């Protein structure tokens, strides 16, 4: 009698627990943002789960450098998670074309995004969108306010003023004027060329003209940023040729450098480390009163695995990502990753507020070579890392750099031939 009861109880618990798990769907997110693990676990996922009962979400990131190859392997093997964090442009486009990502353009909340926001995750003609945009990063310069006050210089708005400030720091000698190195090469391109460039090639106007084949990389608008970069070399720290990206970050946060050519993703890291006041200014324009342009690069989005068995739940999650609630939560949890949503968002971080305010006065543009132009071999994005670093080190003239990139591009891109 007693044993029958025991068996019955055991069976009952088994059935009950199966019933419970049948109601509950677990969604797994693939991502390269392992830095954000705690923010997803403590803030974003609880907020979603509270609003949507029965859907559990697991954030499972991998290392950034391995993400693309790991994700491809998982998708091919059919073991990838339900939700896929999307890199911008060709990386995700190829996944969509291979049928690994579902179209999400018909989600209700997609109307919160403009066409520039969606450009990173749409087909070339813009007919289909396959990821919900999450955030962009803005380029500019972060500076040490205390150092500026100590030397007695003002925030520069034109290129001439910018070099006057650098000269003042160089003359004084207490601070390294610019914290950047060329060892890792990409900072020279991303925080150098793509940062200051939009003012010369007039943002989207120049970028689209280049894609259409109406402008060339040897045109003054595309060579002039190199001419400015060439002058940066003498303001960088001693031995900058072997200075790596973390070296530059540390030089700035330790208060040894005055100006840091930055991407907004640095904000949260810097906030935690500096003991001085920081400010930010947009890339200086050529003449006072010129229109300004900034690099506001679409960086991260999220899409859905076409093979996911939980597509309904996944769509619910993606729709929530498109909402103003998510935009608010994400932008405030990760200052420096700016929401691409049109929803009005209040940000509490002053540095993030400053950087995002540039959007009102300046034209936004994405990095020049990320859409379409980096499809061929040689890869233009890699080549402009190398040439930008070469120009700063003085081993290549701006004209040679422009010519090299133009030759690389015209070797495979029909509109430029």
């Amino acid at each position, binding site marked *: 009698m007693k044993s029958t009861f025991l068996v019955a109880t055991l069976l009952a618990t088994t059935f009950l627990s199966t019933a419970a798990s049948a109601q509950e769907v677990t969604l797994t997110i693939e991502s390269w943002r392992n830095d954000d693990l705690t923010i997803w676990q403590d803030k974003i996922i609880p907020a979603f789960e509270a609003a949507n009962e029965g859907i559990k979400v697991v954030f499972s990131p991998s290392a950034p450098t391995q993400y*693309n*190859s790991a994700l491809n392997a998982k998708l091919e093997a059919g073991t990838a998670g339900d939700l896929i964090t999307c890199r911008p*442009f*060709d*990386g995700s486009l*190829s996944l969509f074309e*291979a049928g690994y990502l579902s179209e999400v353009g018909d989600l209700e909340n997609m109307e919160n995004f403009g066409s520039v926001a969606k450009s990173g995750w749409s087909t070339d003609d813009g007919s289909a969108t396959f990821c919900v945009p999450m955030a962009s990063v803005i380029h500019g310069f972060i500076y040490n306010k205390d150092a500026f006050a100590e030397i007695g210089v003002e925030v520069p708005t034109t290129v001439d003023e910018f070099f006057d400030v650098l000269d003042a720091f160089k003359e004084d000698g207490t601070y390294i004027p610019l914290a950047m*190195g*060329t*060892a*890792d*090469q*990409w900072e020279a391109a991303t925080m150098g060329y793509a940062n200051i460039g939009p003012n010369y090639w007039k943002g989207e106007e120049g970028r689209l003209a280049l894609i259409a084949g109406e402008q060339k990389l040897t045109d003054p608008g595309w060579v002039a940023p190199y001419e400015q970069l060439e002058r940066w070399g003498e303001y960088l*720290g*001693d*031995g*900058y*040729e*072997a*200075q*790596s990206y973390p*070296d530059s970050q540390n*030089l700035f946060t330790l208060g040894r450098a005055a100006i840091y050519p930055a991407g907004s993703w640095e904000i949260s890291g810097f906030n935690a480390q500096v003991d001085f006041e920081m400010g930010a200014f947009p890339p200086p324009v050529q003449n006072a009163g010129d229109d300004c342009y900034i690099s506001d690069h679409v960086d991260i989005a999220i899409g859905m695995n076409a093979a996911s068995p939980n597509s309904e739940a996944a769509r619910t999650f993606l729709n929530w990502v498109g909402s103003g609630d998510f935009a608010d939560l994400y932008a405030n949890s990760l200052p420096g990753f700016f929401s691409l949503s049109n929803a009005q968002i209040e940000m509490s971080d002053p540095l993030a507020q400053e950087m995002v305010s540039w959007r009102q006065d300046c034209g936004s543009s994405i990095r020049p*070579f*990320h859409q379409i132009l*980096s499809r061929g*071999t*040689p*890869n*233009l*994005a*890699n080549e402009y*890392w*190398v040439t930008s*670093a*070469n120009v700063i*080190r003085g*081993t290549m003239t701006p004209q040679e750099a422009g010519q090299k990139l133009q030759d*690389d591009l015209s*070797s495979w891109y029909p509109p430029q031939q």
Partner: protein
Amino acid sequence: MRNLDKPKRRWHIVVFLLPAVLVYTAIMIIPLFGTLQLSLFTTIDREQVFIGFDNFRTLLGDERWSQSFWNALKNNAWFFLVHMIVQNPIGIAIAAMLSSSALRFSSFYRTAIFIPTILSFVIVGFAWKLILSPIWGIAPGMLDAVGLRFLFEPWLGKEEYALTTVALISVWQFVGIPMMLIYAALLSIPDEVLEAGEIDGLTGMSAFWKIKLPLILPSIGIISILTFVGNFNAFDLVYTTQGALAGPNYSTDVLGTLLYRTFFGFQMQLGDPNMGSAIAMMMFLVILIGVCIYLFGIQTRMRRYQF
């Protein structure tokens, strides 16, 4: 009676060889042919299309591809040359000193010099990057202490020095290998031979040049071929110190890093397994030719001595 004439089948030979042959075939030979097959195809609209030797034609004929390839091969050759000129002579010299009975604490030196060999590339690359860093490194400070600060350069960041610097880091790490092999070879030389030489008046340095060196030549040959294979497969150290783009300006790009970027892709560049396989096959060919030259040109002529 007839049975005795027929040679006995020696089944045990097959049985003993089988495990090694099976494992080697599964993890080395099949992948090698898989790579060869992959290199003869290309991807058109997500379909693998057979194109014969077109990938190799592009690699060697296209202006840009061939420039990258020859640059990587040239850097590889220099990398190997630095090892042959620096690593192996130093290894032999240390081994000769260690085998001398006059040296005290020889087992301590032997262990200390061998230890870097068992460290991971990542640790070695990272440690040396820090040592040589112009900002936090101890190299500028140490040079300053002896009044030679002006000799300091950001070596890893200069096109003209970067590759040699990386090669010397690798020499530092692996000098223990030739040392150990030569040391073992030196120990196996019987004392009688040396004593006979001593009676004939060969002592000190001349004993080394006239007796020991000829006897360890086969070991030096083996070390050279190991260095050759290891260097032309190099990837890890360049990747950890200079990144996959092998900067500055591709001056440290070796075949391994070129293969990595092509096969797996890098940042915006998508991977191209077919072209990557073609580069892998070229690496295999280079190593194969090098080993063949050694095997047929040098090893067969080497004289061996029986004691």
